[in-house]
Protein backbone atom coordinates (compact mmCIF):
# COMPACT_ATOMS: atom_id res chain seq x y z
CA UNK A 1 0.00 0.00 0.00
CA UNK A 2 2.83 2.40 0.93
CA UNK A 3 4.54 1.63 -2.38
CA UNK A 4 1.37 2.53 -4.32
CA UNK A 5 0.92 5.68 -2.21
CA UNK A 6 4.48 6.89 -2.83
CA UNK A 7 4.26 6.03 -6.50
CA UNK A 8 0.98 7.89 -6.98
CA UNK A 9 2.26 10.95 -5.15
CA UNK A 10 5.33 11.00 -7.38
CA UNK A 11 3.09 10.78 -10.46
CA UNK A 12 0.86 13.63 -9.25
CA UNK A 13 3.78 15.93 -8.74
CA UNK A 14 5.58 14.74 -11.89
CA UNK A 15 2.59 15.84 -13.92
CA UNK A 16 0.84 19.13 -13.37
CA UNK A 17 -2.40 17.75 -11.96
CA UNK A 18 -1.27 17.88 -8.30
CA UNK A 19 -0.20 21.49 -8.70
CA UNK A 20 -3.27 22.50 -10.73
CA UNK A 21 -5.53 21.06 -8.05
CA UNK A 22 -3.72 22.90 -5.25
CA UNK A 23 -3.52 26.14 -7.22
CA UNK A 24 -7.25 26.12 -8.04
CA UNK A 25 -8.22 25.42 -4.46
CA UNK A 26 -5.89 28.08 -3.05
CA UNK A 27 -6.83 30.65 -5.70
CA UNK A 28 -10.54 30.26 -4.94
CA UNK A 29 -9.87 30.39 -1.20
CA UNK A 30 -7.91 33.60 -1.77
CA UNK A 31 -10.74 35.14 -3.79
CA UNK A 32 -13.30 34.04 -1.19
CA UNK A 33 -11.25 35.46 1.66
CA UNK A 34 -10.84 38.70 -0.26
CA UNK A 35 -14.58 39.03 -0.85
CA UNK A 36 -15.89 37.93 2.56
CA UNK A 37 -13.15 38.55 5.10
CA UNK A 38 -11.39 41.58 3.67
CA UNK A 39 -13.87 43.51 1.49
CA UNK A 40 -17.02 42.69 3.47
CA UNK A 41 -15.09 42.60 6.76
CA UNK A 42 -16.86 39.47 8.02
CA UNK A 43 -14.84 37.54 10.58
CA UNK A 44 -16.32 34.10 9.77
CA UNK A 45 -13.95 32.00 7.65
CA UNK A 46 -16.67 29.33 7.18
CA UNK A 47 -18.43 31.62 4.69
CA UNK A 48 -15.35 31.43 2.51
CA UNK A 49 -15.64 27.62 2.55
CA UNK A 50 -19.32 27.79 1.61
CA UNK A 51 -18.27 30.00 -1.33
CA UNK A 52 -15.45 27.76 -2.53
CA UNK A 53 -17.19 24.37 -2.23
CA UNK A 54 -18.49 24.85 -5.79
CA UNK A 55 -14.89 24.58 -7.02
CA UNK A 56 -14.97 20.84 -6.20
CA UNK A 57 -17.10 20.38 -9.32
CA UNK A 58 -14.02 21.23 -11.40
CA UNK A 59 -11.07 20.20 -9.28
CA UNK A 60 -12.25 16.76 -8.19
CA UNK A 61 -12.46 15.52 -11.81
CA UNK A 62 -9.04 17.08 -12.53
CA UNK A 63 -7.60 15.19 -9.61
CA UNK A 64 -9.28 11.83 -10.02
CA UNK A 65 -9.72 11.37 -13.77
CA UNK A 66 -6.40 9.64 -14.40
CA UNK A 67 -6.05 7.69 -11.19
CA UNK A 68 -7.36 4.35 -12.50
CA UNK A 69 -8.49 5.11 -16.07
CA UNK A 70 -4.92 5.89 -17.09
CA UNK A 71 -3.63 2.63 -15.62
CA UNK A 72 -6.05 0.82 -17.88
CA UNK A 73 -5.12 2.88 -20.93
CA UNK A 74 -1.39 2.37 -20.42
CA UNK A 75 -1.96 -1.29 -19.49
CA UNK A 76 -0.06 -0.72 -16.26
CA UNK A 77 -3.00 -2.26 -14.41
CA UNK A 78 -1.53 -5.60 -15.49
CA UNK A 79 1.61 -4.75 -13.57
CA UNK A 80 -0.45 -3.92 -10.48
CA UNK A 81 -2.36 -7.19 -10.76
CA UNK A 82 0.84 -9.20 -11.14
CA UNK A 83 2.59 -7.59 -8.16
CA UNK A 84 2.24 -9.23 -4.73
CA UNK A 85 -0.22 -6.58 -3.49
CA UNK A 86 -3.96 -6.97 -3.05
CA UNK A 87 -6.58 -4.96 -4.91
CA UNK A 88 -7.60 -3.22 -1.70
CA UNK A 89 -3.95 -2.23 -1.14
CA UNK A 90 -3.99 -0.64 -4.58
CA UNK A 91 -7.27 1.23 -3.99
CA UNK A 92 -6.42 2.39 -0.47
CA UNK A 93 -2.90 3.39 -1.54
CA UNK A 94 -4.27 5.49 -4.37
CA UNK A 95 -6.89 7.06 -2.12
CA UNK A 96 -4.24 7.93 0.48
CA UNK A 97 -2.20 9.63 -2.24
CA UNK A 98 -5.25 11.71 -3.20
CA UNK A 99 -5.79 12.49 0.47
CA UNK A 100 -2.26 13.88 0.75
CA UNK A 101 -2.56 15.88 -2.48
CA UNK A 102 -5.78 17.36 -1.06
CA UNK A 103 -4.41 17.94 2.43
CA UNK A 104 -1.36 19.94 1.31
CA UNK A 105 -3.41 22.99 0.17
CA UNK A 106 -5.79 22.41 3.09
CA UNK A 107 -2.92 22.86 5.54
CA UNK A 108 -2.22 26.24 3.96
CA UNK A 109 -5.94 27.09 4.18
CA UNK A 110 -5.80 26.33 7.91
CA UNK A 111 -3.48 29.31 8.33
CA UNK A 112 -6.14 31.80 7.09
CA UNK A 113 -8.29 31.97 10.26
CA UNK A 114 -5.14 32.36 12.38
CA UNK A 115 -3.99 35.32 10.27
CA UNK A 116 -7.41 36.95 10.45
CA UNK A 117 -7.58 36.38 14.22
CA UNK A 118 -4.55 38.66 14.56
CA UNK A 119 -6.55 41.53 13.01
CA UNK A 120 -10.03 40.85 14.39
CA UNK A 121 -12.29 38.70 16.47
CA UNK A 122 -12.50 35.32 14.70
CA UNK A 123 -14.49 32.51 16.29
CA UNK A 124 -11.97 29.72 15.68
CA UNK A 125 -14.09 26.63 16.67
CA UNK A 126 -16.61 27.21 13.86
CA UNK A 127 -13.81 28.05 11.41
CA UNK A 128 -11.85 24.88 12.10
CA UNK A 129 -15.01 22.79 12.53
CA UNK A 130 -16.00 23.83 9.01
CA UNK A 131 -12.52 23.18 7.64
CA UNK A 132 -12.66 19.70 9.21
CA UNK A 133 -16.02 18.97 7.57
CA UNK A 134 -14.81 20.55 4.31
CA UNK A 135 -11.96 18.01 4.21
CA UNK A 136 -14.42 15.13 4.61
CA UNK A 137 -16.76 16.60 1.99
CA UNK A 138 -13.79 16.79 -0.39
CA UNK A 139 -12.68 13.24 0.37
CA UNK A 140 -16.19 11.86 -0.16
CA UNK A 141 -16.34 13.58 -3.56
CA UNK A 142 -12.82 12.33 -4.38
CA UNK A 143 -13.84 8.74 -3.58
CA UNK A 144 -16.77 9.11 -6.01
CA UNK A 145 -14.39 10.52 -8.65
CA UNK A 146 -12.01 7.64 -8.10
CA UNK A 147 -14.78 5.09 -8.58
CA UNK A 148 -15.84 6.81 -11.83
CA UNK A 149 -12.23 6.68 -13.01
CA UNK A 150 -12.25 2.91 -12.43
CA UNK A 151 -15.17 2.48 -14.83
CA UNK A 152 -13.49 3.66 -18.02
CA UNK A 153 -10.20 3.64 -19.91
CA UNK A 154 -10.48 7.23 -21.03
CA UNK A 155 -9.46 10.08 -18.76
CA UNK A 156 -11.69 12.49 -20.69
CA UNK A 157 -14.70 10.26 -20.25
CA UNK A 158 -13.93 9.86 -16.53
CA UNK A 159 -13.62 13.64 -16.13
CA UNK A 160 -16.86 14.27 -18.07
CA UNK A 161 -18.92 11.79 -16.09
CA UNK A 162 -17.38 13.06 -12.86
CA UNK A 163 -18.35 16.70 -13.62
CA UNK A 164 -21.94 15.60 -14.33
CA UNK A 165 -22.12 13.58 -11.10
CA UNK A 166 -20.66 16.50 -9.11
CA UNK A 167 -23.16 18.91 -10.68
CA UNK A 168 -26.07 16.57 -9.96
CA UNK A 169 -24.93 16.29 -6.39
CA UNK A 170 -24.49 20.05 -6.09
CA UNK A 171 -27.97 20.77 -7.44
CA UNK A 172 -29.49 17.69 -5.81
CA UNK A 173 -31.76 19.68 -3.49
CA UNK A 174 -33.02 21.98 -6.27
CA UNK A 175 -33.70 18.97 -8.48
CA UNK A 176 -35.58 17.30 -5.62
CA UNK A 177 -37.66 20.40 -5.05
CA UNK A 178 -39.06 20.20 -8.57
CA UNK A 179 -40.80 16.96 -7.57
CA UNK A 180 -43.91 17.81 -5.54
CA UNK A 181 -43.49 15.01 -3.05
CA UNK A 182 -42.13 15.69 0.39
CA UNK A 183 -40.53 12.24 0.89
CA UNK A 184 -38.68 12.51 -2.43
CA UNK A 185 -37.51 16.01 -1.55
CA UNK A 186 -36.29 14.75 1.81
CA UNK A 187 -34.38 11.87 0.18
CA UNK A 188 -32.67 14.28 -2.22
CA UNK A 189 -31.70 16.53 0.68
CA UNK A 190 -30.27 13.54 2.54
CA UNK A 191 -28.30 12.30 -0.46
CA UNK A 192 -26.65 15.62 -1.22
CA UNK A 193 -23.12 15.80 0.11
CA UNK A 194 -23.01 19.55 -0.38
CA UNK A 195 -26.33 20.14 1.43
CA UNK A 196 -24.99 18.46 4.55
CA UNK A 197 -22.16 21.00 4.62
CA UNK A 198 -24.58 23.95 5.06
CA UNK A 199 -25.01 23.16 8.75
CA UNK A 200 -21.28 23.49 9.34
CA UNK A 201 -20.93 26.93 7.83
CA UNK A 202 -24.00 27.98 9.77
CA UNK A 203 -22.06 27.21 12.91
CA UNK A 204 -23.29 23.71 13.81
CA UNK A 205 -20.92 20.78 14.07
CA UNK A 206 -23.05 17.90 12.74
CA UNK A 207 -21.44 14.59 13.64
CA UNK A 208 -23.99 12.59 11.59
CA UNK A 209 -22.78 14.41 8.48
CA UNK A 210 -19.19 13.37 9.23
CA UNK A 211 -20.35 9.78 9.69
CA UNK A 212 -22.26 10.08 6.41
CA UNK A 213 -19.13 11.33 4.61
CA UNK A 214 -17.03 8.49 6.03
CA UNK A 215 -19.69 5.96 4.95
CA UNK A 216 -19.72 7.41 1.43
CA UNK A 217 -15.91 7.16 1.28
CA UNK A 218 -15.93 3.55 2.48
CA UNK A 219 -18.77 2.62 0.11
CA UNK A 220 -17.12 4.05 -3.01
CA UNK A 221 -13.70 2.62 -2.14
CA UNK A 222 -15.41 -0.75 -1.79
CA UNK A 223 -17.05 -0.27 -5.20
CA UNK A 224 -13.69 0.69 -6.61
CA UNK A 225 -12.14 -2.57 -5.36
CA UNK A 226 -15.07 -4.47 -6.87
CA UNK A 227 -14.66 -2.65 -10.17
CA UNK A 228 -10.97 -3.65 -10.35
CA UNK A 229 -11.78 -7.21 -9.34
CA UNK A 230 -14.47 -7.39 -12.01
CA UNK A 231 -11.89 -6.46 -14.62
CA UNK A 232 -9.77 -9.32 -13.41
CA UNK A 233 -12.69 -11.67 -13.95
CA UNK A 234 -13.81 -10.31 -17.30
CA UNK A 235 -10.36 -9.57 -18.71
Amino acid at each position, binding site marked *: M*VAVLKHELALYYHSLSGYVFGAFLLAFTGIGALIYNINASVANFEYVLSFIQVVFIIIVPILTMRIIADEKRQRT*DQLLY*SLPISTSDIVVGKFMALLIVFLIPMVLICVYPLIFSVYGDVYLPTSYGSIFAFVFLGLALISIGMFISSLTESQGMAAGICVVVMLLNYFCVQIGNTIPNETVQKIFRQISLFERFTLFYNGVFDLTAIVYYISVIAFFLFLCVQSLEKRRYKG
Partner: protein
Amino acid sequence: MITVEHLSKRYGDVLAVDDLSFKIEDGHIYGFLGPNGAGKSTTLNIITGCLAATSGEIKIDGHDIYEEEKEAKKLIGYLPEIPPLYVDQTPREYLKFVAEAKGVKKADIETEIDRVLEETHITEMQNRLIKHLSKGYRQRVGISQALIGNPSVIILDEPTVGLDPMQIIEIRSLIAELGKKHTVILSSHILSEIQAICEKVLIIYKGRLVAFDDIESLGKTMASGNEIDIISSGNPDQTIEVLEKLSSVESYNQNQSADGFSSFRLTVKSGDVYETCKVIFMTFAANNIPLVKLNPIQTTLEDIFIELTSSEKEEGINEEIESIEEADENIMPEQEAR
Protein backbone atom coordinates in the same frame (compact mmCIF):
# COMPACT_ATOMS: atom_id res chain seq x y z
CA MET B 1 7.42 -25.33 -9.90
CA ILE B 2 4.17 -24.41 -11.65
CA THR B 3 1.26 -26.83 -11.70
CA VAL B 4 -1.74 -26.05 -13.85
CA GLU B 5 -4.71 -28.37 -13.48
CA HIS B 6 -7.86 -28.41 -15.58
CA LEU B 7 -7.63 -24.72 -16.32
CA SER B 8 -10.53 -23.21 -18.28
CA LYS B 9 -11.42 -19.66 -19.13
CA ARG B 10 -14.66 -18.64 -20.74
CA TYR B 11 -15.44 -15.20 -22.15
CA GLY B 12 -19.20 -15.27 -22.58
CA ASP B 13 -19.80 -18.01 -25.14
CA VAL B 14 -16.17 -18.25 -26.21
CA LEU B 15 -14.00 -20.85 -24.53
CA ALA B 16 -10.53 -19.26 -24.64
CA VAL B 17 -8.77 -21.92 -22.59
CA ASP B 18 -10.13 -25.44 -22.54
CA ASP B 19 -9.16 -27.82 -19.73
CA LEU B 20 -5.44 -27.13 -19.80
CA SER B 21 -3.17 -29.18 -17.53
CA PHE B 22 0.62 -29.14 -17.43
CA LYS B 23 3.57 -28.97 -15.09
CA ILE B 24 6.56 -26.65 -15.42
CA GLU B 25 9.78 -27.94 -13.87
CA ASP B 26 12.65 -25.87 -12.51
CA GLY B 27 15.55 -24.66 -14.57
CA HIS B 28 14.48 -24.83 -18.20
CA ILE B 29 13.45 -22.35 -20.86
CA TYR B 30 9.93 -23.24 -21.94
CA GLY B 31 8.43 -22.10 -25.19
CA PHE B 32 4.74 -21.43 -25.17
CA LEU B 33 3.70 -21.67 -28.75
CA GLY B 34 0.46 -21.17 -30.59
CA PRO B 35 -1.08 -19.15 -33.41
CA ASN B 36 -2.62 -15.77 -32.65
CA GLY B 37 -5.75 -16.15 -30.56
CA ALA B 38 -4.86 -19.65 -29.33
CA GLY B 39 -5.14 -18.58 -25.70
CA LYS B 40 -1.45 -18.02 -24.90
CA SER B 41 -1.79 -14.60 -23.31
CA THR B 42 -4.96 -15.61 -21.48
CA THR B 43 -3.19 -18.62 -19.96
CA LEU B 44 -0.15 -16.57 -18.94
CA ASN B 45 -2.37 -13.86 -17.47
CA ILE B 46 -4.15 -16.47 -15.40
CA ILE B 47 -0.90 -18.09 -14.21
CA THR B 48 0.38 -14.69 -13.06
CA GLY B 49 -2.84 -13.80 -11.28
CA CYS B 50 -3.77 -10.95 -13.63
CA LEU B 51 -6.90 -12.73 -14.73
CA ALA B 52 -9.25 -15.06 -12.90
CA ALA B 53 -9.90 -18.52 -14.31
CA THR B 54 -13.41 -19.85 -14.86
CA SER B 55 -12.29 -23.15 -13.36
CA GLY B 56 -9.09 -24.99 -12.55
CA GLU B 57 -6.21 -24.70 -10.17
CA ILE B 58 -2.79 -23.07 -10.42
CA LYS B 59 -0.06 -23.61 -7.90
CA ILE B 60 3.29 -21.86 -7.87
CA ASP B 61 5.71 -23.88 -5.76
CA GLY B 62 2.72 -25.22 -3.82
CA HIS B 63 1.07 -21.79 -3.32
CA ASP B 64 -2.36 -21.35 -4.88
CA ILE B 65 -2.39 -18.18 -7.01
CA TYR B 66 -5.76 -17.09 -5.58
CA GLU B 67 -5.65 -18.33 -2.02
CA GLU B 68 -2.02 -17.48 -1.28
CA GLU B 69 -1.79 -14.65 -3.76
CA LYS B 70 1.14 -12.75 -2.24
CA GLU B 71 3.40 -15.77 -1.68
CA ALA B 72 2.69 -17.11 -5.17
CA LYS B 73 3.20 -13.79 -6.94
CA LYS B 74 6.53 -13.19 -5.23
CA LEU B 75 7.88 -16.23 -7.08
CA ILE B 76 6.94 -14.87 -10.51
CA GLY B 77 8.24 -12.02 -12.62
CA TYR B 78 5.90 -11.21 -15.50
CA LEU B 79 6.28 -9.14 -18.62
CA PRO B 80 2.90 -8.86 -20.37
CA GLU B 81 2.56 -8.50 -24.12
CA ILE B 82 2.43 -4.71 -23.86
CA PRO B 83 5.14 -3.71 -21.34
CA PRO B 84 3.33 -2.04 -18.42
CA LEU B 85 5.44 1.09 -18.10
CA TYR B 86 4.81 4.47 -16.50
CA VAL B 87 6.19 6.49 -19.38
CA ASP B 88 6.49 9.72 -17.38
CA GLN B 89 8.99 8.13 -15.02
CA THR B 90 12.61 7.15 -15.45
CA PRO B 91 13.52 3.44 -15.39
CA ARG B 92 15.09 3.93 -11.97
CA GLU B 93 11.96 5.51 -10.45
CA TYR B 94 9.80 2.87 -12.06
CA LEU B 95 11.93 0.01 -10.76
CA LYS B 96 11.95 1.57 -7.30
CA PHE B 97 8.17 1.38 -7.21
CA VAL B 98 8.20 -2.23 -8.37
CA ALA B 99 10.86 -3.15 -5.80
CA GLU B 100 8.85 -1.55 -2.99
CA ALA B 101 5.66 -3.25 -4.13
CA LYS B 102 7.46 -6.61 -4.30
CA GLY B 103 8.57 -6.11 -0.72
CA VAL B 104 12.32 -5.81 -1.35
CA LYS B 105 13.99 -4.61 1.87
CA LYS B 106 14.57 -0.87 1.93
CA ALA B 107 18.33 -1.24 2.40
CA ASP B 108 18.58 -3.58 -0.61
CA ILE B 109 16.43 -1.63 -3.06
CA GLU B 110 19.21 0.42 -4.66
CA THR B 111 21.56 -2.55 -5.11
CA GLU B 112 18.68 -4.64 -6.47
CA ILE B 113 17.86 -1.93 -9.03
CA ASP B 114 21.54 -1.67 -10.02
CA ARG B 115 21.67 -5.44 -10.45
CA VAL B 116 18.66 -5.67 -12.79
CA LEU B 117 19.74 -2.58 -14.73
CA GLU B 118 23.09 -4.22 -15.32
CA GLU B 119 21.58 -7.57 -16.17
CA THR B 120 19.34 -6.03 -18.84
CA HIS B 121 22.10 -3.64 -20.02
CA ILE B 122 20.19 -0.39 -19.45
CA THR B 123 22.34 1.20 -16.74
CA GLU B 124 23.15 4.14 -19.00
CA MET B 125 19.44 4.75 -19.67
CA GLN B 126 18.33 4.70 -16.04
CA ASN B 127 17.74 8.43 -15.71
CA ARG B 128 15.98 9.11 -19.01
CA LEU B 129 12.21 9.29 -19.12
CA ILE B 130 10.77 6.00 -20.35
CA LYS B 131 8.73 7.85 -23.00
CA HIS B 132 11.99 8.94 -24.64
CA LEU B 133 13.36 5.39 -24.89
CA SER B 134 13.21 3.22 -28.01
CA LYS B 135 10.97 0.16 -28.15
CA GLY B 136 13.89 -2.20 -27.55
CA TYR B 137 14.95 -0.33 -24.43
CA ARG B 138 11.36 -0.16 -23.18
CA GLN B 139 11.17 -3.92 -23.57
CA ARG B 140 14.33 -4.22 -21.48
CA VAL B 141 12.85 -1.98 -18.79
CA GLY B 142 9.84 -4.31 -18.82
CA ILE B 143 12.10 -7.34 -18.42
CA SER B 144 14.09 -5.65 -15.65
CA GLN B 145 10.81 -5.08 -13.81
CA ALA B 146 10.13 -8.81 -14.00
CA LEU B 147 13.61 -9.55 -12.60
CA ILE B 148 13.23 -7.38 -9.50
CA GLY B 149 13.15 -9.46 -6.34
CA ASN B 150 14.95 -12.33 -8.12
CA PRO B 151 11.84 -14.48 -8.73
CA SER B 152 12.42 -18.11 -9.64
CA VAL B 153 10.11 -17.99 -12.68
CA ILE B 154 10.21 -15.33 -15.38
CA ILE B 155 7.24 -15.24 -17.74
CA LEU B 156 7.61 -13.24 -20.93
CA ASP B 157 4.65 -12.80 -23.24
CA GLU B 158 5.82 -12.25 -26.83
CA PRO B 159 8.86 -10.19 -25.79
CA THR B 160 10.20 -9.63 -29.30
CA VAL B 161 7.05 -8.41 -31.05
CA GLY B 162 7.54 -5.12 -32.83
CA LEU B 163 11.31 -5.00 -32.42
CA ASP B 164 13.79 -4.59 -35.25
CA PRO B 165 16.02 -7.60 -36.16
CA MET B 166 18.98 -6.29 -34.18
CA GLN B 167 16.86 -5.73 -31.08
CA ILE B 168 15.32 -9.19 -31.50
CA ILE B 169 18.78 -10.78 -31.45
CA GLU B 170 19.73 -8.78 -28.36
CA ILE B 171 16.55 -9.66 -26.46
CA ARG B 172 16.94 -13.32 -27.40
CA SER B 173 20.47 -13.47 -26.06
CA LEU B 174 19.25 -11.71 -22.93
CA ILE B 175 16.55 -14.36 -22.48
CA ALA B 176 19.11 -17.13 -23.02
CA GLU B 177 21.22 -15.54 -20.25
CA LEU B 178 18.20 -15.38 -17.96
CA GLY B 179 17.57 -19.07 -18.59
CA LYS B 180 20.79 -19.89 -16.76
CA LYS B 181 19.47 -18.50 -13.47
CA HIS B 182 15.69 -18.69 -13.73
CA THR B 183 12.96 -20.87 -15.13
CA VAL B 184 11.75 -18.95 -18.14
CA ILE B 185 8.43 -19.28 -19.93
CA LEU B 186 8.46 -17.53 -23.26
CA SER B 187 5.36 -17.21 -25.36
CA SER B 188 5.58 -16.62 -29.05
CA HIS B 189 3.97 -17.38 -32.37
CA ILE B 190 7.36 -17.17 -34.05
CA LEU B 191 8.60 -20.73 -34.42
CA SER B 192 12.22 -20.00 -35.15
CA GLU B 193 12.41 -17.96 -31.97
CA ILE B 194 11.21 -20.84 -29.81
CA GLN B 195 13.50 -23.25 -31.64
CA ALA B 196 16.48 -20.95 -31.09
CA ILE B 197 16.07 -20.39 -27.36
CA CYS B 198 13.81 -22.96 -25.75
CA GLU B 199 14.52 -26.43 -24.48
CA LYS B 200 10.96 -27.55 -24.04
CA VAL B 201 7.89 -26.50 -25.88
CA LEU B 202 4.17 -26.38 -25.15
CA ILE B 203 1.98 -26.05 -28.19
CA ILE B 204 -1.48 -24.71 -27.62
CA TYR B 205 -4.21 -24.50 -30.21
CA LYS B 206 -7.74 -23.21 -29.69
CA GLY B 207 -7.20 -23.19 -25.95
CA ARG B 208 -6.08 -26.82 -25.83
CA LEU B 209 -2.65 -28.27 -25.21
CA VAL B 210 -1.72 -30.25 -28.32
CA ALA B 211 1.90 -31.05 -27.47
CA PHE B 212 4.34 -30.69 -24.57
CA ASP B 213 7.83 -32.13 -24.94
CA ASP B 214 11.49 -31.43 -25.69
CA ILE B 215 11.91 -29.95 -29.12
CA GLU B 216 14.13 -32.89 -30.15
CA SER B 217 11.85 -35.65 -28.97
CA LEU B 218 8.89 -33.85 -30.49
CA GLY B 219 10.78 -33.93 -33.77
CA LYS B 220 11.43 -37.64 -33.40
CA THR B 221 7.87 -38.56 -32.55
CA MET B 222 6.48 -36.38 -35.27
CA ALA B 223 8.80 -37.48 -38.10
CA SER B 224 6.41 -38.99 -40.61
CA GLY B 225 9.09 -40.84 -42.62
CA ASN B 226 12.77 -40.58 -43.28
CA GLU B 227 13.54 -38.39 -46.21
CA ILE B 228 16.85 -37.43 -47.76
CA ASP B 229 17.59 -34.86 -50.43
CA ILE B 230 20.39 -35.65 -52.83
CA ILE B 231 21.96 -33.93 -55.82
CA SER B 232 24.22 -36.07 -57.92
CA SER B 233 26.52 -34.96 -60.70
CA GLY B 234 25.30 -37.77 -62.98
CA ASN B 235 22.35 -37.49 -65.35
CA PRO B 236 18.93 -38.67 -64.08
CA ASP B 237 19.14 -42.09 -65.72
CA GLN B 238 22.52 -42.82 -64.19
CA THR B 239 21.30 -41.64 -60.82
CA ILE B 240 18.14 -43.74 -60.98
CA GLU B 241 20.27 -46.74 -61.90
CA VAL B 242 22.29 -46.33 -58.71
CA LEU B 243 19.19 -45.67 -56.62
CA GLU B 244 17.59 -48.90 -57.83
CA LYS B 245 20.58 -50.79 -56.43
CA LEU B 246 19.99 -49.36 -52.95
CA SER B 247 17.75 -51.64 -50.90
CA SER B 248 17.20 -48.99 -48.22
CA VAL B 249 15.58 -46.57 -50.66
CA GLU B 250 11.86 -47.15 -50.80
CA SER B 251 10.94 -44.50 -53.34
CA TYR B 252 12.31 -41.39 -54.99
CA ASN B 253 11.02 -38.24 -56.66
CA GLN B 254 12.95 -36.18 -59.10
CA ASN B 255 13.21 -32.47 -58.40
CA GLN B 256 14.24 -29.70 -60.73
CA SER B 257 17.97 -29.18 -60.93
CA ALA B 258 20.69 -27.31 -62.83
CA ASP B 259 22.21 -28.69 -66.03
CA GLY B 260 24.57 -31.59 -65.48
CA PHE B 261 23.09 -32.41 -62.08
CA SER B 262 20.07 -34.33 -60.99
CA SER B 263 18.18 -33.73 -57.79
CA PHE B 264 16.07 -36.33 -56.00
CA ARG B 265 14.13 -36.61 -52.79
CA LEU B 266 14.42 -40.12 -51.41
CA THR B 267 12.17 -41.85 -48.95
CA VAL B 268 14.21 -44.41 -47.10
CA LYS B 269 13.29 -47.27 -44.81
CA SER B 270 12.99 -46.32 -41.16
CA GLY B 271 16.11 -46.80 -39.12
CA ASP B 272 19.18 -44.70 -38.55
CA VAL B 273 18.99 -42.12 -41.32
CA TYR B 274 22.68 -41.26 -40.99
CA GLU B 275 23.71 -44.88 -41.53
CA THR B 276 21.55 -44.90 -44.67
CA CYS B 277 23.30 -41.70 -45.80
CA LYS B 278 26.69 -43.42 -45.45
CA VAL B 279 25.50 -46.34 -47.60
CA ILE B 280 24.11 -43.98 -50.24
CA PHE B 281 27.36 -42.03 -50.32
CA MET B 282 29.52 -45.12 -50.69
CA THR B 283 27.30 -46.61 -53.40
CA PHE B 284 27.41 -43.43 -55.50
CA ALA B 285 31.17 -43.25 -54.98
CA ALA B 286 31.59 -46.87 -56.10
CA ASN B 287 29.66 -46.01 -59.27
CA ASN B 288 31.88 -43.00 -59.88
CA ILE B 289 29.08 -40.49 -59.58
CA PRO B 290 30.04 -37.77 -57.09
CA LEU B 291 27.25 -36.57 -54.85
CA VAL B 292 27.24 -32.80 -54.41
CA LYS B 293 24.47 -32.78 -51.82
CA LEU B 294 23.34 -35.35 -49.30
CA ASN B 295 20.94 -33.89 -46.80
CA PRO B 296 18.77 -35.82 -44.35
CA ILE B 297 15.65 -33.71 -43.85
CA GLN B 298 15.14 -32.77 -40.21
CA THR B 299 11.71 -32.11 -38.84
CA THR B 300 11.55 -28.43 -37.87
CA LEU B 301 9.32 -27.02 -35.24
CA GLU B 302 7.40 -25.46 -38.08
CA ASP B 303 6.60 -28.92 -39.51
CA ILE B 304 5.53 -30.18 -36.11
CA PHE B 305 3.41 -27.13 -35.53
CA ILE B 306 1.68 -27.30 -38.90
CA GLU B 307 1.11 -31.02 -38.53
CA LEU B 308 -0.34 -30.73 -35.03
CA THR B 309 -2.57 -27.78 -35.73
CA SER B 310 -3.74 -29.12 -39.09
CA SER B 311 -4.60 -32.51 -37.58
CA GLU B 312 -6.62 -30.64 -34.94
CA LYS B 313 -8.35 -28.75 -37.73
CA GLU B 314 -9.08 -31.99 -39.60
CA GLU B 315 -10.50 -33.52 -36.44
CA GLY B 316 -12.71 -30.50 -36.07
CA ILE B 317 -13.90 -30.81 -39.67
CA ASN B 318 -14.48 -34.57 -39.25
CA GLU B 319 -16.53 -33.93 -36.12
CA GLU B 320 -18.59 -31.39 -38.03
CA ILE B 321 -19.13 -33.79 -40.94
CA GLU B 322 -20.16 -36.53 -38.50
CA SER B 323 -22.63 -34.25 -36.77
CA ILE B 324 -24.08 -33.20 -40.15
CA GLU B 325 -24.37 -36.85 -41.17
CA GLU B 326 -26.09 -37.68 -37.90
CA ALA B 327 -28.48 -34.80 -38.42
CA ASP B 328 -29.18 -36.06 -41.95
CA GLU B 329 -29.86 -39.55 -40.65
CA ASN B 330 -32.32 -38.14 -38.17
CA ILE B 331 -34.14 -36.28 -40.91
CA MET B 332 -34.20 -39.22 -43.35
CA PRO B 333 -36.49 -41.56 -41.37
CA GLU B 334 -38.94 -38.68 -40.92
CA GLN B 335 -39.00 -38.11 -44.66
CA GLU B 336 -39.37 -41.82 -45.28
CA ALA B 337 -42.27 -41.95 -42.85
CA ARG B 338 -44.02 -39.27 -44.84
